[in-house]
């Protein structure tokens, strides 16, 4: 298991490095349309072939991976911070605050977020550059995606609140702030870590879903969501199996994220 985890981590690092150096590794700009060769098969010039508009698929995959792999962890971080604040505080304080916070979490989980995301996306200013639209898309994912994590963190904080060492710290006269920062938070770290890692693939898939609906990252910027739309055309996949590369990469990356999460994190 350790070997698998290390391999997965190494693969993730490799992918991250490749995406960071996309500018050097990509054989062509991601937006350049080679209009004379749309739907080209893999060749020495186009390693994975081209898409319907003649854009180099390998370059788009590299840049798309950069978008998804850098911003999904950022969105996950945002969601985990919000979840830690809401869930951690509710679980630690307890009482009416916990009830109100958990009611808010339940309400948040019951809302149809996909439609809400569509609505928020629709009311944004139109003249946003593609990069800004990208940041907003992931920020929205982060802002809306904290509820499930908050519930888990709340449960963890609640069990810590009633633990012997917290009771002992309180009995020794430690202030609430000190107990929270020095006793509760360090013990919540595995849960926070697990929630952070679990949320990354969730946000990658959420962006992919938005992309399939045509509402993710704006053209011409690639993302995994946008690239996965290429799978709609079965005949194009038959002609060029290289089009499956984004799906394969998504599968491998999501699996790697699951593997690198320590068992301790789940156990917590």
């Amino acid at each position, binding site marked *: 298991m350790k070997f698998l985890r290390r391999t997965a981590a190494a693969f993730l690092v490799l992918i991250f490095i490749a995406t960071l150096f996309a500018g050097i590794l990509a054989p062509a700009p991601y937006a350049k349309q080679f209009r004379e060769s749309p739907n080209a098969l893999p060749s020495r010039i186009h390693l994975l072939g081209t898409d*319907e*508009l003649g854009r180099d698929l390998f370059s788009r995959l590299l840049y798309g991976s950069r978008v998804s792999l850098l911003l999904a962890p950022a969105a996950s971080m945002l969601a985990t911070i919000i979840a830690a604040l809401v869930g951690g505080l509710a679980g630690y304080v307890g009482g009416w605050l916990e009830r109100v916070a958990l009611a808010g979490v339940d309400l948040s989980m019951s809302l149809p977020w996909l439609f809400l995301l569509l609505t928020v996306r*629709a009311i944004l200013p139109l003249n946003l550059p593609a990069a800004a639209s990208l940041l907003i898309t992931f920020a929205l994912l982060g802002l809306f995606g904290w509820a499930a994590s908050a519930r888990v963190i709340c449960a963890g904080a609640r069990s810590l609140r009633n633990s012997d060492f917290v009771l002992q710290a309180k009995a020794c006269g430690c202030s609430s702030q000190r107990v929270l920062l020095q006793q509760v938070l360090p013990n919540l770290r595995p849960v926070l870590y697990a929630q952070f890692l679990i949320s990354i693939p969730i946000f990658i898939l959420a962006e992919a879903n938005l992309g399939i609906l*045509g509402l993710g990252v704006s053209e011409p910027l690639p993302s995994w969501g946008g690239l996965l739309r290429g799978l709609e055309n079965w005949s194009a996949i038959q002609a060029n199996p290289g089009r499956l590369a984004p799906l394969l990469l998504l599968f491998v990356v999501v699996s790697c994220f699951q593997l690198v999460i320590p068992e301790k994190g789940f156990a917590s």
Partner: protein
Amino acid sequence: MRGHRLALLAAGALLAALPAKPQSGGELRFVLRSEPKTFDPMLVDDEASETIRYLTGGVLIRVNRKSQTLESELAVSWKVSEGGKKISFRVREGLSFSDGTLFTAEDVAFTMQKLMDPDLHSPTGDSFRSSQGPVRAIASDARDVTIEFPAPVAGLERLFDQVAIVSARSPKKELAVLGPFAVAEYKSGSYVLLKRNPYYWKKDAQGRSLPHVDSIRLEIQQNRDLELLRFKRGEIQLINSLDASYFENLAKEMPAAARDLGPSLDSEQVWFNQVASAPIPDYKKKWFRSTSFRRAISEAINRDDLCRVVFSGHARPAAGPVSPANLLWFNKWVQPHPYDPQAALRRLQQDGFHLDGHALHDAEGHPVEFSVVTNAGNKYREQMAAMIQQDLEQIGVRLNIVTLDFPSLIERISRTFDYELCLLGLVNVDLDPSAQMSVWLSSSSNHQWNPGQKSPATSWEAEVDRLMQAQASTNDQKQRKRYFDQVQKIVWEQQPFIYLVNKNVLVAISPALANTSPVVLRPQTFWNIESLYFFKEAHGASR
């Protein structure tokens, strides 16, 4: 002996070369892409119901989908008088509805009275409504009927192509029909079964009763992948419209079944928001109202590439509001603006724009940047937008692409007017220019670039108003054509809509079907449904 054999072989070859005799019987199958909303021909407002109306309804006059001219059906003759206010029909005698009820002129009068009843809210009836006032339909005897409208109706006869006559006396009401088929069975979400109308009046050249096929099974199926798969398996025999990618796929596997019929009536276009109260900066409004700016953008778009790359060559560059597929109304003088980025740049420079590095700026120094909105999920429009983005980049214009869900898009283009450029398509069903009145009249809410004007904002819009009203108020076809040609020319010059492409009509027809003659007008593959039949071998299989 050898000579006899040769003679026999020659005779055999001759027989094989002769056209096959129509084989009666068999069940034709194809797909409805949505549930039909109604079987009442007067309330038809969706494509599935329209298909059923076409296959079951008997009409007085039919637009021949191939020649695009009018042909008599239930009417033997007709006469339009009083400048398009009145129309008189003489109907065929001895015909019966599918339940055996006799057809008379009284049924025509009954149909028109019912159709024009304001309480019915019939979409078909609305196309006859040129002004307020009652419509009078009087049957003077069993064969003659006169219909009088409160005001002239442009292209009056053509509108009767949509009017399926219903019986005034039949207990089966609208289910008693005069068309080649009648609804026999309907299973919601699954299929509609049509069976041959035993009382149908038409006969073929050999005097045999039409239609040739016994029944039509219309499978309700939204998934186009499944539709194509079922066609390839031989489970359905027709596909009325295919996307370019599906067409290419089919053409590789079944080249004889895939047919590209050339440009359709439909167009894809972009337009700039010219609404005075729109929440966009004034300097941008100034660009969008400039004819030179719009012309330059049009010249900077490579339409040939759009057709070749996005539609795999199954589209034609569009020039104006009328497709070349519309044989009667297309103005041949109007041709697509040639792709010429240098000419576009010169035109912009004459209008005060200048290049600063790679970015175009207006006379006040604002960089030329705007957004295009289109509906999310439409692969072809998103690809066109991406190509236009790269084309405009060559003249220093920065285009941002925004895809929105359809309700949000409609909200922006018709209520808040919070958009700059919009990319959408226009579906043309009717050949007559009067059907486009709501688009071209400046007072109309469908005058997309600047709807609902109290008085025309520009002199050319005032001229278009005048010409459209003039063509609608005369029945002289040549005069109407002259007026509408002029409208097409003004639109070409002013570019309120920058027309991009006319998509080709792509259909699939099973080689098992005989006598097929697909056309660009709807319904493309089965417009001559009575004449279609199965080849003998296929017939056995379909039974």
